[in-house]
Each structure stands twice: as structure tokens, then as C-alpha cells.
């Protein structure tokens, strides 16, 4: 079974994010890393391909400046190859444009299953995976916390407000997985060395038959009106616990009439 995992390479979330002053898009100039959320999808894909007794895991990613450092992390985990779409025309793309680009690249890989995180850590619109499924004309199961594949059918547990639904869907299909769904492996030294030699096919939008008017800032059809500091919350009383910290909390809750 061949699996595509959509992965995003993002600025390190440990550093404060920034927007460009002119277009108000996220600054992605420095080194990009594999979004933590995507490690779960990569791990899940590797396990499913293993369980199916064969097949390849292919990564599909869209990033500026031919960025591959995050892809190398996922290749080191065990993915076989990657398709990277990198094109200046893609700057300012929204979720819908991104989905069109990813779907076009996924078609080239002809997978049985596509896995994505439910949302990225930096942009977190949370619509791209299902938009990809709709562009492909495929069924999808979002917010999946458990997945197995047998006889061409995906069996997935999908998160609901009150518990979860068991869902079945025939391949080809897309699933978006929540964090914590599996324990991502750490790349081994051997894996890291092997990743350097794995193929990364770099494409431009023209290679995918897409037009510059459909993607990037031109395709986004939305604009940022303003960015302003939010009303700041003031810090209140800070006390060091000398064995009486709990009493301060009890007094605070009493004052609020919560207890």
C-alpha cells in the first residue's frame, strides 16, 4: 500500500512568530523544521505500510526557497521519498490554494491513502486536508485518533464532542490524524545518514499544470485589514509557595464564591 503524508515545514514554534509588515503573512525566512503535528502522520503511515506488507511512504510538502530540512527529518524516520513544491508564485497562498497544489502533487504519486495532521501549528486554519480530499474527489475522515487498513477499507476512530465514532471508508481516501495517535519514532543515526541520499523531487506550479492566478496572494482573495496588540491582561498577585499556596487559592475561590 502506498501512502502519501502531507507535511509542513514551519518556523520553530519555540521562537516568537512574526508577520511581514507589508503583506501580513508569516515570516518564513529562517530555518524551517518539520511541524511536530506531522510526525504522528509520518509514523502512522510507516506503520500502516509495514502492516500491509509493503508499499512506499511518500512525503508531499509546499515550502518557500526549496526548503528541505523538515523533509529530511521525516525521511530519516523512514519515508522513501518526497515531492516538494516550491515556487515564488506561491507566496501568500491561503488554505484553498495550498490544497489545490498539494492535490496536484498527490495525483502524481498515485497513493492508496493520504494522511495529514488535523491542522498546522503555525497557520492552523484546519481546512487544508479535507480541501485536498475534495479536490481529489475522495472521501475523508478527519480528526482520527486510531486507524487500521484491511482489504481496501480504512477503519478509523473519529473524535466527536462526546466520544468517538467508528468510521469505515474504502480506499483511496484521506485521513487527518490528531496528535498522540501513535508514538513517533526518533530518527536513528542510520536513518539520518540514509535520508541525505533519498530522492526529493522539486516541482514548480507549472509542472503541476497550475496557473499563477489560482495560487499565491492572487488566489487568496482575502486581505488583512489590520494587526493590533490585544488588550493586555494584567498579572495579579504572585506568591512563592511556603506550604501555604493552597490556602491562598482557597481564599481566592471563596472570594469569587466558587466554593
Amino acid at each position, binding site marked *: 500500500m502506498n501512502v502519501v503524508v502531507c507535511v509542513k515545514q514551519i518556523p520553530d514554534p519555540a521562537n516568537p512568530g512574526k508577520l511581514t509588515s507589508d503583506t501580513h503573512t508569516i515570516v518564513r525566512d529562517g530555518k524551517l523544521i518539520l511541524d511536530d503535528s506531522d510526525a504522528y502522520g509520518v509514523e502512522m503511515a510507516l506503520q500502516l505500510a509495514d502492516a500491509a506488507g509493503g508499499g512506499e511512504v511518500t512525503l508531499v510538502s509546499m515550502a518557500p526557497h526549496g526548503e528541505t530540512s523538515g523533509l529530511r527529518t521525516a525521511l530519516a524516520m523512514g519515508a522513501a521519498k518526497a515531492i516538494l513544491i516550491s515556487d515564488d508564485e506561491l507566496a501568500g497562498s491561503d488554505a484553498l490554494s495550498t490544497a489545490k497544489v498539494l492535490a496536484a502533487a498527490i495525483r502524481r504519486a498515485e497513493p492508496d491513502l493520504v494522511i495529514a495532521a488535523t491542522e498546522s501549528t503555525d497557520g492552523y486554519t484546519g481546512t487544508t486536508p479535507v480541501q485536498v480530499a*475534495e479536490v481529489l474527489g475522495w*472521501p475523508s475522515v478527519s480528526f482520527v485518533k486510531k486507524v487500521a487498513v484491511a482489504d481496501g477499507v480504512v477503519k478509523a476512530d*473519529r473524535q466527536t*464532542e462526546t466520544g468517538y465514532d467508528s468510521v469505515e471508508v474504502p480506499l483511496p481516501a484521506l485521513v487527518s490524524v490528531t496528535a498522540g495517535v501513535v508514538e513517533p519514532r526518533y530518527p536513528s543515526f542510520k536513518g539520518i545518514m540514509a535520508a541525505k541520499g533519498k530522492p526529493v523531487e522539486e516541482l514548480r506550479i507549472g509542472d503541476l499544470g497550475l496557473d499563477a492566478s489560482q495560487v499565491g496572494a492572487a488566489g487568496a482573495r482575502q486581505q488583512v485589514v489590520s494587526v493590533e496588540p*490585544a488588550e493586555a491582561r494584567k498579572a495579579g498577585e504572585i506568591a512563592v*509557595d511556603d506550604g501555604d499556596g493552597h490556602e491562598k487559592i*482557597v481564599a*481566592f475561590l471563596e472570594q469569587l464564591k466558587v466554593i
Partner: protein
Amino acid sequence: MAVNKIWVIVDRQGEKIAPLSLELLTKARSLGGTVEGVTWGDADAIAADVGKYGATTLFNVGDLAGGLPGPPVAAALAAAISSSGAPDAILVPHNYDGRDIAARLSVKIDRPVLTNVVGLEETEGSLVTEHAIFGGAEVLKARFTGEGPAIFVVRTKSFAAEEGDGGPAAVTPWEIPDLGATGGAKITDRHVEESEGPKLDEAPVVVSGGRGLGQADKYSMIEDLAKLLKGAAGASRAIVDAGWVPYSHQVGQTGKTVKPTVYIAAGISGATQHMVGMKGSKNIVAINKDQEAPIFSIADLGIVGDVHKVLPKLIEALQGRS
């Protein structure tokens, strides 16, 4: 452009209308123009309430035959737009099914979506949204520039739900177009996980735990404290990612937004990812070993201390009172 017509996706919670959909109906009513609801399943049962909150019509996609709502609801919306015109805006709840519906609809009608909306006003003839970015430190305002309909996916608790005085909404059936392969996912079984006490996003008190708890089994302290305060137990992304607690407990950007009367953060440092989901709480109590933890910058009461010492004493003190 004055707002002439808004559609609101009406989702359920059990038999009733989901609180978030009531918030959206209230907001749509306040923007003026006609408000119409879109739902599935038994529409007659909720038509009176949908009307009370401002919708005159309730379009009903009907029985989904075990399918997930995303594909049929999006296809029915797209068909209605193509046959009888689009509203100015479609308000979609930011929940599991809502995001599926918005995503599929946006591709079908080739229109972008604005998600994580926390504010919406009409300004100089266009609908301007608000979004909390960088952990809520900044507010970004945005608007669509192209043709409508504008698809907005709105986070919970962004607006208050208030009843109006409208009569029952008129239920109008919508047919589900042929879904092809997209309708292939079927629900084979539903599992309700019994959780005692109130729901996370409705509880007056929320107690959340983070990495500072040290290990998974210490989360029971969070649950015990939440129970004593008749509240709900939440979690930071770090411990959900680590597999200690299910995703449904996650508070933050990628989880739930909560605005309780009291939020108690125990062993949570206050990553921007977490703060955006809880900084709207009326009162915040933080317990953390690290005096420099960002969570203290927004706490009304901060206790610099070890959660393993403070929480057991707090639990004991509260047990003594009940």
C-alpha cells in the same frame, strides 16, 4: 454592501442545537438581513428554537444514511447556491463537522474560507473578521476581497447566545446531490465516553494540567480537583501529544477555547498555543515551579511552587469542606 442574507450551519449536541450554533444565529441576527439555518437529521424538532434565535427558514439536508455530514451538507449548499443564489455569508461552527463542511464547500464553489474567527462586524460595507494570533497577543482583522459568499468558521464563545422573539423557522427540504466517491465514509458505531460533570467549554471552573505534572498518572490530581470544584478537566497540548490525556481535553489553539469563571493552570508554562485558548477566562490561577513562566503574566493569582505539593494540599482542603 449591506448584509442581506446570512446562512448559519445548525449543528446538534445530542437532541438539542449545539450552543455554538445558537451563538452564530444570534450574531447573524445582529448583523441585519435575513437569517436562514442549514441542518440535517430531524429538523422539525429544532425548528422552533432555530426560529427563536432568528432564522426564518431552516433548510434540511435530511437523513445522512450513516454518512459523515461534510460531503452531503457541502454538496447541498453548493447546489442551492448554484440554483438560487448565494447569501452574503455562511457562518460555520468551528468543530469537527463544521470544518469538514466549510472545507468541502470552499472547493465546490471555489471560494476561500476564513477560520478561527473570534469577532465579526460590518465595517464600511464589508464583513471584517477578528482572529487572535500569537497566543492572543495580537488581534488580526481580515476581510474577503473577491465575490461571495464569504465562508466564516467561527470559534466557540466568540459571541453570546441570546434568544429573540421569532416564530418557528419554516423547514424546507434540500436534496442531497450525487456525492460520488466523496460520500464513501460511513459511521458504523457511535461511542459516547461517559464523562462526569460539565463539558470542558461550558464548565464554570476548568482545571488544566501540563508537562509540570511529570508523569501521566499524576493527571488524576487534575481530575480530582476538577470534580471537587464541579468543573471540567483540561490539558495542555504537550501532555496530549505525549499521549497522557485524550485530545478531547486539549485547551488551546489546536483544542478547545474556554472562558470559565475560574481557570486553574497547574504545571503549565503558558505556551502561546495554550494561552490563546484560555486567556478569555474571567479569573486565572496558575501554579508553576518556574517564576519566569509566561502563564504568570496573565494570572490573577500565581503560586510559584511545586504542583506535587500544592495540589494534594488543595484537594485535601477542599475535601474537608464538602
